[in-house]
């Protein structure tokens, strides 16, 4: 019963999402995700050191960030992880998952 309700809900949202999407409109999560670009590279392709996030699965991203919220060894990443809600982390994760991994882009 619960599963069927979810499916109906999701199907009901799809046409709305399509209608709301203007041509050229910013993809969801892009602006939030751009907070990561300073250290993890434009669109998540880092040029040195820090991990590239482009192409990472959305689930992995959200899970790792949730774990960093309580990780005392995470250094500067702990406050960054804590600043976002789980919903925001999922949205950021979906954006990076959609980005192609390119060669270190200098």
């Amino acid at each position, binding site marked *: 019963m619960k599963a069927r309700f979810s499916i109906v809900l999701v199907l009901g949202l799809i046409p709305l999402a399509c209608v709301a999407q*203007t*041509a*050229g*409109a*910013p993809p969801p999560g*892009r*602006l*939030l995700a*751009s*907070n990561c*670009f*300073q*250290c*993890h*590279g*434009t669109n998540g392709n*880092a*040029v*040195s*050191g*820090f991990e590239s996030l482009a192409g990472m699965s959305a689930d992995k991203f959200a899970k790792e960030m949730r774990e960093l919220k309580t990780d005392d060894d995470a*250094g*500067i990443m*702990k*406050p*960054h992880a*804590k*600043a*976002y809600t789980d919903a*925001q982390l999922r949205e950021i994760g979906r954006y990076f998952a959609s980005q192609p991994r390119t060669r270190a*882009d*200098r």
Partner: protein
Amino acid sequence: MNNNRRRFLAALGAAPLIMHPLARALADDMPASLRGTKPVWIPANAPLSRVPTNLPIQGRVVVIGGGMAGATVAKYLRLWGGSGLQVILVERERTYVSSIMSNLVLSDALTIESLTFNWKRLMDRYGVKLVAGEVTAIDPAGKRVMLNGSSIPYDRLVVAPGIEFDPVAGLETAAAQDRVPHAWKAGAQTTILRKQIAAMPGGGVFLMSVPKAPYRCPPGPYERACIVADHLKRAKPRSKVIVLDENPAITVEKDLFTHAFNVVHAGVIDYRPGVGVQSVDAAAGTVKTSSGEMIKANVLNVIPNQRAGAILKEAGLTNSTDGRWSTVNELTYESTAAEGIHVLGDSAATMQPKAGHIANQEAKVCADVIVRGFLGLAPDPAPVTNSACYSPITAKTASWLTALYAYDPASKRMKPIAGGMGEGPASARNMEEMRQWFSNLMTDSYA
């Protein structure tokens, strides 16, 4: 860097015989083509591949100033707005010297060349049009900027001129300013200050002042005190660093810098809170403090109080309560004094710090707003920005400070996010992170 390139640089005489480990690491990280003094090589098939051609936007944005905010907004307007959105970047300098990391030039850990960037990647990869010159006036009603005896019309204007310095009594002439450099905009003054430090005798005195908040780069003056003290310990034994702070206390990372001053650099740094500079005698090498004391030093580094870039005052856009900064709608960075003009970075009066890393993020928020505007879409109602910076405490260690901000609809301000703030201790690991941070940050802004 591969061996061929290393040999190539050595053959050109571009690489010093002995490179500081940090400088060498940076040279390995950084794209040489980003720097002003190196040749630029762009693959023939690469141009504009990053700029979408299928977006329904037609318009023109003029950006004044190619610093961290201006360069970033120019890049992201093209990346997110597409090829129909013309972006004209007006810049008066031939190169950009990063103020971030520039304190390390004072201790000879980095060269000024390693911090010098240009706008070629933005032009060649993103099709940003660069106009060399200085904007002399803005005409908000006619939507045009004036320069070089002509004018450039715009649909939207972004003004990111950085900071302007208050006059200091005794430092009215260019000669006096060369004698007592602030070195708070990296460039020629940084080199002058480095040479003055190099010429100091052992047992000498370096005196610096901390400007009244808000000023550019909150931890910067305290970082400078640490770097200079650390350097003098080795290069000029028995020397002292006197820090006059016009603020009542250390403005950021208070525990960390208190420890650095009283323990790490004990006996070298003499920190005096609540003391400003009343006047300077450049020829005599003395300052008169706000409490009337005269102090003589071998090197004087008075960092003046700061305000928004001059063009904003000229245009009547410095409308904060104290008349020093530009008040903006913090959702859009649009000036509250003029429609269609956005003010970014250090010149804007927000609760966000005046620093390059967060200026980069403000620029992305602004680019997103402008792109949405051309599409007839409302701004993102919940933007987030982040500030992060690493500060060297010694030649081998650095600390970090970070804060994230979110738009608060009730107060209509960008406010710190609870839990999204922190600072990290001085460590070798943070020094390593610092150079990776700098490489990626500069690439995100200039490439």
